[in-house]
């Protein structure tokens, strides 16, 4: 019984507890150990943290729904870079330039549509060929990255549009656009996954595919939608980020897929599908970003972040297994 409560706590609240622990730790360590003059738990600092979480965070939300569905998407980093290029490049088309600032929403739409299409391609291949999503998106990761390079060679694509920069830096109550978009995406996708038939069916498919099929749920369309959504979200992430930065390096977004998966797993989503929450993923994203900033705050080398995150990921896995191990009757196989 005691392990039951512990288990529930660890599964549902662990990531927030961990975040709290980090906040306290970095505050205290910063003050008494590193002798930092600034406080860590500071509104501006935390808002900045949320803003910095946005690019990976938005993608991680998409990764959550794909993984809940029992798939994975390794191509998000390449989609991110490609959509960034589409956004900035399309603004430079003669037709678009003629439209002035009116071209901005159109360019964003084009970029978002591109992301959707790239996601749909992945989804269609997974659905129609039956090739494992891991392989399909591994291939796409290379393929889409190739398209990124084909766009502009190894040169960065730049187009700093000050209206867009203003949009990216706009904010209310000190919360800037990227953070707002992240929170909005979390809210919407959370609603979709918890309240709609599509969301619930996606869980069912990842949980027990055979039962879902037997109950007449069509697996293919649901997978397709989820791949389109993650493509869209990768594009959205690019729109949010590159509006402000104005320059895409062809290597941008590399390893994003791995960071997103890390955040998703930290947030409690099961690799095998069927279980996971959008809110948990938000926690995972924040926890990683907090770790970066926190270690920076106490003067630790930034490289330590990688070691700590890697270790935490493995420890989480170990804890999860210990807690979920069947009480008895398990074969030593």
């Amino acid at each position: 019984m005691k392990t039951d409560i512990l288990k529930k706590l660890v599964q549902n609240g662990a990531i927030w507890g961990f975040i709290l622990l980090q906040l306290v730790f970095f505050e205290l360590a910063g003050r008494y150990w590193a002798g930092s003059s600034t406080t860590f738990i500071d509104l501006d600092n935390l808002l900045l943290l949320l803003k910095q979480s946005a690019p990976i965070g938005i993608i991680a939300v998409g990764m959550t729904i794909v993984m809940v569905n029992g798939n994975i998407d390794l191509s998000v980093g390449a989609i991110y870079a490609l959509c960034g290029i589409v956004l900035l490049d399309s603004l430079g088309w003669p037709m678009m330039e003629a439209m002035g600032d009116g071209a901005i929403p159109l360019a964003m739409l084009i970029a978002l549509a591109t992301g959707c299409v790239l996601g749909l391609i992945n989804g269609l291949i997974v659905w129609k060929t039956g090739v494992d999503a891991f392989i399909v998106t591994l291939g796409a990761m290379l393929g889409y990255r190739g398209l990124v390079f084909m766009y502009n060679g190894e040169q960065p694509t730049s187009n700093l549009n000050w209206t867009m920069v203003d949009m990216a830096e706009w904010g209310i109550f000190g919360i800037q656009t990227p953070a707002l978009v992240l929170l909005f995406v979390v809210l919407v996708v959370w609603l979709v996954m918890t309240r709609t038939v599509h969301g619930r069916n996606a869980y069912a498919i990842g949980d027990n595919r055979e039962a879902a099929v037997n109950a007449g749920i069509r697996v293919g369309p649901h997978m397709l939608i989820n791949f389109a959504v993650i493509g869209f979200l990768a594009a959205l992430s690019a729109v949010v980020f590159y509006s402000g930065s104005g320059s895409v390096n062809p290597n941008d977004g590399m390893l994003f897929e791995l960071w997103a998966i890390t955040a998703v797993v930290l947030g409690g989503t099961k690799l095998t599908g069927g279980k996971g929450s959008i809110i948990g993923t938000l926690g995972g994203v924040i926890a990683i970003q907090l770790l970066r900033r926190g270690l920076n705050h106490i003067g630790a080398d930034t490289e330590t972040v990688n070691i700590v995150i890697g270790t935490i990921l493995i420890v989480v896995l170990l804890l999860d297994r210990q807690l979920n191990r069947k009480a008895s009757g398990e074969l030593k196989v």
Partner: protein
Amino acid sequence: MADTAIKTFGGLLARQGILVAFILFMVGFTLWNPRFIDIDNVFGVIRSSAILGVMALGVTFVVIGGNLDLSVGSMLSFSAIVVLDLHENPAFGPALAIPAMFALTLCLGAINGFLVGYLRLNSLIVTLGMLSAIHGLTLTWSGGQNMDIADQGATWFGVFGRGTALGIPIPVLIFVALAAFLGILLAKTPFGRKVYAVGGNPTAATFSGIPRARVVFLTYLISAFCVAVAGLIQASRTMGAQNTVGQGLELEVLAAVILGGASLLGGSGTIFKTVIGVLILGFIQNGLLLAGLQFYVQFVVTWIIIILAVWLDIATKRGKLWSPIA
């Protein structure tokens, strides 16, 4: 008669599809540009594929054993940085730097192997975590700086990456020798058989008295060993390295292994097929370059080829082109 011919050809395609594709590809390109199979060009391709190839040899063991290793890319950066740093350390020098680097890299492989083999944790997440952790370790080791050999003329260290023997580049010799050795290990020894059994059906392997944990552990050690070799070639060729030299390689390596026909579910694949997979990637890149196209076109081509290859494979197995997913 025609039927049998189609069946035979279909069967051949199913079993050796990737080899057939490779040969067709080579013939096609050679007809178009005879320089393609010029001996220098071939050596050039193999040499430039050697690092990826050597890593793929090790990952093949891990994948046949039913697991993944996503940490090989950052492990490569680690081994290159470490060997270069120790090389510059007067207490070590090249003769000691190399074995020390191998020992350290093998330790990392042992951690992977322990976590996946003995603790039975999910290999995707474990090696993902290790990817991050090793990257951090590398940065800590190097202090974020690039590593360079100061006096390149004074060391024999460059031999692994730049040397030739009998007119053959040393990296090519290393790749071929390692492929032969590991190919025999996998195909001809009891250990190799156990790797297939553990990957093919871990439960049945346990019921047959095969120490599954130890076998998995050893596959990760082999993978780490190959990374160390690749890191040595890398460091020796460039006599310097960035902290991120191996970044992203883990997935390219995996692509080569899958292209060779190893199943991610474990239990199938061979070293020979992986070598073919590596060569296909290498020759595509080379062929496209000869055709005047940029190197990155190969990414797109690789994407299409990987999906077609795996699709062809499973379509022949299920006897239907399209998946039965509703």
